[in-house]
């Protein structure tokens, strides 16, 4: 499955990983093998219930695989303390999950706090991250998270995930709940950030457009299985599987419609 991967060494490797919930007859994830290179942006794409979120959560051990092996930097994660593992992996979810009883600054600084950094160091790191996310520290650091807009909240969510200087970020539909303008802006900024920090990112989405725009490679999933992995352009041009074709036809058609509209000089869509 490693053909078409980046030249970098594998940062995350999933080998024949399966996950069954209780006595369910169908596995949620079925013998999935995949590797993600260091600094690579991989998108897990598929419809609801295809097992993409389950796959993501096994990488930071929020879920344990029923069988198979997951390695990070070559080491089996089941041999590691799950809490310490999670602290060196950034995690961003659609619900954002900011702590409503903590200020913006306390939210961003929570992982360094848990890791026992000293106060000054935490404060500097928080300032730095807010700055990085385009939030003026003086203005935002003591605010309640409830006062922020959706976009600002997700910026805080990303800043929180970055606080412990992780090399890996796991993201579950991080931009799903945002309005289109904010979403586009944040997607673009995050892509920049990912390149700048050389983050290895695994992002789950069902939004084909998002997948095509952000991913270095897209892994298409269906019914717990990996259908196809490839670079967005290659998949758009010539998918090996019909399912991939069907899935990616939507953004393709949208793009074509858009270009017709623009060349026809019609509406302001």
């Amino acid at each position, binding site marked *: 499955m490693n053909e078409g991967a980046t030249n970098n060494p594998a940062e995350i490797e999933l080998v024949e990983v399966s996950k069954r919930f209780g006595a369910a007859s169908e596995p949620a994830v079925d013998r999935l093998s995949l590797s993600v290179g260091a600094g690579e942006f991989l998108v897990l794409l598929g419809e609801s219930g295809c097992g993409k979120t389950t796959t993501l959560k096994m990488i*930071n051990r929020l879920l344990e695989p029923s069988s198979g092996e997951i390695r990070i930097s070559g080491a089996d994660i089941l041999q590691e303390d799950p809490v310490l*593992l999670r602290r060196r992996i950034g995690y961003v*979810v659609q*619900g954002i*999950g900011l*702590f*409503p*009883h903590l200020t913006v600054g306390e939210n961003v600084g929570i992982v360094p706090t*848990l890791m026992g950094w000293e106060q000054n160091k935490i404060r500097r790191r928080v300032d730095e991250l807010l700055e990085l996310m385009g939030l003026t520290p003086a203005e935002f650091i003591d605010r309640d998270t409830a006062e922020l807009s959706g976009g600002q909240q997700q910026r805080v969510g990303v800043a929180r*995930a970055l606080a412990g200087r992780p090399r890996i970020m796991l993201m579950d539909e991080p931009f799903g709940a945002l309005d289109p303008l904010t979403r586009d802006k944040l997607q673009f900024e995050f892509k920049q950030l990912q390149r700048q920090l050389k983050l290895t990112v695994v992002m789950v989405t069902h939004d084909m457009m998002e997948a095509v725009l952000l991913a270095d490679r897209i892994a298409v999933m269906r019914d717990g299985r990996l259908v196809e992995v490839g670079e967005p352009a290659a998949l758009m041009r010539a998918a090996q599987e019909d399912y991939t074709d069907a899935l990616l036809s939507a953004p393709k058609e949208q793009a074509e419609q858009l270009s017709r509209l623009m060349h026809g000089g019609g509406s302001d869509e």
Partner: protein
Amino acid sequence: MNDSMLMEQLHRLPDYLSAHLLLTIVALAVGVVVCIPLGFLVTRVKALQWPTLSVVGVLQTIPGIALLALMVPLLGMIGFVPALIALSIYSFLPILRNTVTGVLGVDGSIVEAARGIGMTDRQLLFRVELPLALPVIVAGVRTATVWIVGTATLATPVGATSLGNYIFGGLQTQNITAVLVGCISAALLAIILDQIVRLVEVAATRRNFRLGALATLLLLLLFALGIGPSLAERLADNNRKVIIGAKTFTEQYILANLITKLLDEEGIAAESRAGMGSIILFDALASGGVDCYVDYSGTVWANAMKREVVPSRDTLLAEMTDWLRDVKGIRNLGALGFENTYALAVTRETAKKYGLRSISDLSAVAPQLSIGSDYEFFSRPEWSAFKATYRFDFNDHLSIDPALMYSAVSEGETDVITAFSTDGRIIDYDLVLLTDDRQVFPPYDAVLLVSETAADNEPLLSALQSLVNGISDQQMQVANKIVDVDGFSVDSAATYLLHQLEGD
């Protein structure tokens, strides 16, 4: 109601209020310490959730007074501890239920994010779940607070002092002032405590630490007020006070007050625990929780000794005295000189009209007369024995409230009643008691009982000695009348008896 009656009640307020406060705050603290961790546990171990909430829910449905009374035989003691445990159990449901609701109400994505960024279970609990659930948990504590303040007034019958002493005593002795003082103080206390816990709630919701500290300070202050007097008392005299018990009717309140006065004159510190359940009081005397009280020979014979055949008065007294000493370690100091038994009573006109002096005189006219009695008499063994021995019955049987039957007979609504022989209303309505010439009713001689430890206390025994054969039927009737009919306080009735004793 006048000022002096109010003052007489208010001077007991510090004692009753501090005892009530202590009981309430400690019970609440136990509820919090038990139920918040338990609540978190059952959100973690889902299998425990339903059984735990069910058990606590069922405990809650036990009426407060029953739960309190149940603790006495279960623990084999009276007073603060059984009351505290019952009240704590009463606080469980609201605190537990709100803890579970609060924890389960924390947004799932927040919990997932907390785990996802690498919080340990402990950190998740203390940094996320507890602070987020706190407002809901404190709301449960608030509900529990109001419940406990109210239910603590029911602690009086198990021998724990509380504001309920006002209410129980006041209701029995028809002292409205006492009842009102008790109810109003309990209501005020509930409002004040509720507002303080509300402060905690607001502090928790707004995450205002200063407000939380203020509320905690206020609670500690109240706790100090509660514990202060009893602590001061304990420091003041190392000797334990003599505890005088009393059941739940006027005569008992008067006698307990009288005994306290007598001991006070001899310089023996005593306090009365009035308004206790009959069986609870007997057991407390046997176990030494109460040192002294007045019981009635027929009651001990039937209830404690479980004997049915009634011998002559002297035999019964002698056998009872032996049994109390040998089986229960209780000392009978002797009869007080009066008896409080069932007695048939008629108006003076009825007595004249039919020439009635004894119960046997009724046999010819009974089929034309009606009899009124309390709710239980017609199902008691005394009534079967009555019919079997005297061989007549009345035309009509009327069950009425004991407090109303005296006026019912005087107004002609019924012809004969089963009066309690020392009731003050017998004098007030000028009723005639008919002699029990065939001795159907067991003797109910008032007897002065003391606990095993008190029996070794020579000064106590000699102080109590003047009571033996010191009070006649008529004197006790007058004393009861002072309270029940004339509306004076228990204290004044006891003072009357004290003068009678010392006048002899």
